């Protein structure tokens, strides 16, 4: 099946029905392996056992940003290409991205208290991630405010494109400003600054969370297509009665 064929909602529903159980099953298997690797990973020489929080915090940060990147591409799909599934994707990705951003913020705070001596500082990295979370809440609120999905899609697409400015700010905040948050240690020029004994479990956990994200996104898109069918049928029923 070509990617373009999935633009048809009925074909997408058949694709989702086949794919979701396999993707979800794979996520569970990778999670089981990743958690096992995380538990046996050695303590860090500086962070001690709290390095285990990184196996959750880093995937949360990655998926919070990935969610908005998906929404940004979907926003272009809505405004430029008018792809039938673009706004479905954007609407489905928002609460999932928001949840992973919240996970990033909470686990980061729980790591910060023993390591920095505080749950929160208003440094550029933390503040820009908090802004991302607030942007997610704004997009979710906007979807709920406008009743007509196509009008809501255009409004949220514009907000999403504006909010995308926050993604490079998050990424480069540790380089542009003096921050308490550490600089890039995985995706940076040269080799990662993390020992393989910690880096490998981190990659496995990130893969597991990414598979969970993909499964939840597909399932949520399927739900949104069904919700729109219900809405259309109710409108048909109401107009038949009137």
């Amino acid at each position, binding site marked *: 099946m070509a990617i373009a064929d999935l633009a048809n909602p009925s074909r997408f529903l058949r694709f989702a029905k086949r794919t979701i159980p396999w993707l979800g099953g794979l996520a569970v298997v990778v999670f089981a392996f990743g958690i096992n690797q995380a538990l046996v990973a050695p303590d860090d020489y500086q962070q001690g056992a709290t390095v285990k929080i990184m196996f*959750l915090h880093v995937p949360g940060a990655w998926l919070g940003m990935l969610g908005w990147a998906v929404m940004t591409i979907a926003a272009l799909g809505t405004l430029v290409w008018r792809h039938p599934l673009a706004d479905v994707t954007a609407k489905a990705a928002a*609460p999932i991205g928001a*949840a992973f951003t919240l996970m990033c913020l*909470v686990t980061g705070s729980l790591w910060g208290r023993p390591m920095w001596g505080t749950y929160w500082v208003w440094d550029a990295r933390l503040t820009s991630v908090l802004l991302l979370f607030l942007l997610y809440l704004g997009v979710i609120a906007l979807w709920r405010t406008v009743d007509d999905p196509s009008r809501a899609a255009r409004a949220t697409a514009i907000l999403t494109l504006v909010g995308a400015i926050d993604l490079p700010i998050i990424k480069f905040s540790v380089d542009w400003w003096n921050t308490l948050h550490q600089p890039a240690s995985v995706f940076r020029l040269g080799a990662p600054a993390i020992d393989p004994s910690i880096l490998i479990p981190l990659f496995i956990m990130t893969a597991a969370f990414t598979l*969970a994200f993909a499964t*939840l996104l597909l399932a949520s898109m399927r739900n949104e297509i069904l919700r729109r069918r219900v809405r*259309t049928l109710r409108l048909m029923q109401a107009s038949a009665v009137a």
Partner: protein
Amino acid sequence: MQAANHMGFIVAAYGTAIAVVGGLTAWVMLDYRTQLRNLADLEKRGVIRRSAPPHPQPAREPTKEEA
């Protein structure tokens, strides 16, 4: 820097992750059931999509005219 000192923070972080992934999964599954139930209710009332596949008709004996 002993693991025991920080165990509470580690457990709270993993609890948060379980709540986020578990909560999202439960929400998506409940939402799916709700939409299926809504569609079934509408179908029961005879409201179906024009492009919906037709229900299979039970086999019937040919009428005299058809025979």
